[in-house]
Each structure stands twice: as structure tokens, then as C-alpha cells.
């Protein structure tokens, strides 16, 4: 994935990007990529809880971590990192939140794993692993050290 990103942005270009991980798994993956690519710009974090579309169904989560974006989003080339791309709703919420911070030049989506079950027209630009799963199977990332992907059966 690091190689794909390097190829995409060029060795110099990758330094100019603002990498942002989505809580919690996406942050772990982003931390690893950030280190491997040696990006100097600090890593950003997004907690999309306030932007979820199912707030009225799942309610308030008191453990929301404040989002942290180290620099202005305006005109930045953003690399948005999530652990598992499934329905696409998390990415939709993350994009909405990002745009409340400003107008980025571009957003590139990175997912450690991509699985079937998309409900929105959202695709990742860089993917580590492609999985075809049944609806009752779930992918779970545990971490941060070691980072492990597991497929679990829903009860």
C-alpha cells in the first residue's frame, strides 16, 4: 500500500499530503503508513461519531475522541485512511466532516481491506486486501500492535 501511494503521488508529492486516519482502526493503519512513508506532516485523526447517519438509531456514544487535524484542510491533498471499507457510510461521514474543516484540493481513499456490501457509490483508490464475504461475516481489525485482521461470524 505504501508503494502504491508512493507511485501515485511521487516521492516528493507524498510529503506534501495530509494523511488522516478514521477512528479507531483507520488511525492505526494510518500510523503505520505514515511511518513507512516518512511523512513529516503530522497525522490527522477523524472521529466521525457526530456525522453518522444512524445517530437516532444507535444514540450518543460518550467516548468520542475529538478530531484532530494538524494543518488547514484548505487546498490540502488528503490521504484518508480507513481499516475496512464496507457500506461506504463511514467514508461518507468522514468526507462531510472534512469539508466542515475546509475545501481540500483532493481526497484519496485508502482502505486496508475492502469487502462486498457497498451501499453508497464510494470506492477506495488504494486497497490492501480484497474480500468477498457474506452479509453475516464481518472483518475486524485488532491493534494497534500487532495489527491483525480477523473474519468473524455475526451471531
Amino acid at each position, binding site marked *: 500500500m505504501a508503494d502504491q501511494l508512493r507511485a501515485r503521488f511521487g516521492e516528493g508529492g507524498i510529503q506534501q499530503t495530509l494523511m488522516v486516519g478514521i477512528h479507531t482502526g483507520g488511525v492505526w493503519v494510518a500510523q503505520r503508513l505514515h511511518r513507512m512513508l516518512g511523512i513529516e506532516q503530522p497525522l490527522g485523526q477523524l472521529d466521525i*461519531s*457526530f456525522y453518522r447517519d444512524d445517530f437516532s*438509531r444507535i*444514540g*450518543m456514544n*460518550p467516548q468520542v475522541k475529538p478530531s484532530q487535524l494538524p494543518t488547514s484542510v484548505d487546498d490540502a491533498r488528503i490521504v484518508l485512511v480507513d481499516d475496512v471499507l464496507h457500506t461506504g457510510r463511514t467514508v461518507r461521514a468522514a468526507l462531510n466532516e472534512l469539508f*466542515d*474543516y*475546509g475545501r481540500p484540493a483532493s481526497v484519496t481513499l485508502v482502505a486496508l481491506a475492502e469487502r462486498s456490501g457497498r451501499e453508497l457509490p464510494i470506492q477506495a483508490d488504494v486497497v490492501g486486501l480484497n474480500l468477498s464475504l457474506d452479509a453475516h461475516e464481518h472483518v475486524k481489525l485488532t491493534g494497534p500492535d500487532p495489527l491483525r485482521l480477523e473474519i468473524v461470524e455475526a451471531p
Partner: protein
Amino acid sequence: MRRRDLQLDAQGRLRHLLTIEGLKRQQIVDILDTAESFIGVGDQPVRKIPLLRGKTVVNLFFEASTRTLTTFELAAKRLSADVLKININTSATVKGESLLDMLRNLEAMHCDMFVVRHGDSGAAHLIAQHVAPHISVVNAGDGRHAHPTQALLDMFTIRQQKGEFAPLTVAIVGDILHSRVARSQIHALTTLGVSELRVVAPKTLLPDAVQGLGVHVFHDLREGLRDADVVIMLRLQKERMQGAMLPSEHEYFQTFGLTEDSLAVARDDAIVMHPGPINRGVEISSEVADGPRSVILQQVSNGIAVRMAVMSMVLGRAPVDGEAG
């Protein structure tokens, strides 16, 4: 179904916020933690999140307010709720419409939350008892009884400045008798477990029942402030006073007014708080109110995040099968 505690739903979650009394420590901590996560919203270029989009909040203020009304309104707007402000002096209640009739009408307009400020103790409880099941009530101050969101924002400010509650000595100074803020603060501080809680006031401005609340009573300002970590000044509520409770404002300032001189006996890193509006030269000198130890304006800013937390928690309860609310 009759519930033991009007504030909580069948799952024990906050359905209304009427008083601090009866809340468990963890519930208070949850509110403070939630407020923490909303602090950043004020720093975003777009100071708005879509959490309560499509919800309608009604501010029902039967009594004057600037800070509380404004910060409730800002909090609701930052959560993307629609906000109505009903000015009671110009509304139909002066035409003889009863309070409950007015509530029925607001319910019929599909409102989701009433934020209530009233001069009578118990007004918010009364409204909470009579509202439809889908409506939440937040008490924004009722008579001399309670002002829970003020106490919560004060707790938030203390935690922000001092970290832990356990080692702290807190002194609440001034007009305890008329103060709903003091009552809510005392319940919050005893529930969170401060090391020592003091109230400092002339005998005429202390309610008889204060001894039973687990506080140490002082009638001398300097004794009460000695080694305090947190000094909370209260406004002298002249509008609620009848008869001769005080000799004069000047004399009150001489004996109970907070000055750099009287504050010198508190700890060097003590913070000074005041719920506002401040009477300069009555309960606090301008030197202290505007000084480096004053966190009075931080309290106002924190009020927005704390009110966002309360609103999102009472409106953001996930529905449970079989429960109407």
C-alpha cells in the same frame, strides 16, 4: 408506567435534566466526557455538526437570562437543531393561556425539547411530568431550586483547570440562600467527591438546611478561603431579597467581597469562578474578576460544550423495543 426517577428512562439513561440531585457520579462524568468531545467544534472553521439535524428545541424563558439563554441557543445551533425562543412576557400566557395549554400547543408543533427557565422552584419538574413521552425537558434554572447545566459547566471548568476532584478544597462564597446555582454545585461536588466543601456566607444568607448537605460552614471570609483550591463567588441576588438581610452593599463588600487581599490566603494556584452576571464592587472586585486567577470567561465558553453534551445525550438515546419514549 410510573418511574421512580423522572429524569431517567427505563434503561437508566438521562431523559430529562432537571436537577443534579440523584445523579450518580458516573452519569456526571459521562456528561463531562461528552462535553470534552464537543470542545473542538468551536475551533472548527464551520462551527456546526449535524447531530441534532431535524430536531426542534424550544427555549421557554419565564425569567430574564442572557448567558444561559444565549449559550443554550448556540449549543442547539451548533448541533444543527432548529431553535425557537418563546418570550413569555409577550406570549399568550399574559393573555390568560395556562402553561399546560401552551405546552400542548408546542407539542402539536412537533417540538423535541423544552429548555425551561422559571422563577418558581419545581417548574421544570412540573413540565416534565406533563409533556408527551417523546419530549425532553432541560432545566435552565428554577427558582431557588436547581440550575444543573450551570453546575455541570462549573464542574467541567474545575476538571479542566485542576484535573482531579479528590484532592480539592472548594469554597462557595456569598448568597447561598437564594442561589439555585449553589444548590446544584453542592450536589455535584459532593457526588464527585472533593476533599472539602465549604460554604462561606453571613448567617442571613444561608438556608437552615445547608448543614445537612455535607458542607463546612464559615461566617468569616478569610477563614473560609484559607488554602482553598477553587473559590466560587455567587452573585448577591438583590432582586430576590425582601427586607433587611444586609446592612448595605458597601458593608457586604467589606466583609464578604473577594479582593486580591482576601484571596491571598487561598492557595497560590487557586482559581476564581463566578456564574455571572457579576456585581463588581459588591461580591467581587474588578481586580480579581479580570485577574489571572479568574476563569469566569472560560466558564462561559465551556457552557456551550456542556449544553451540547446534555442536549445530545437526552435526545440521542437509542430507541429500545417496547418503549414509547
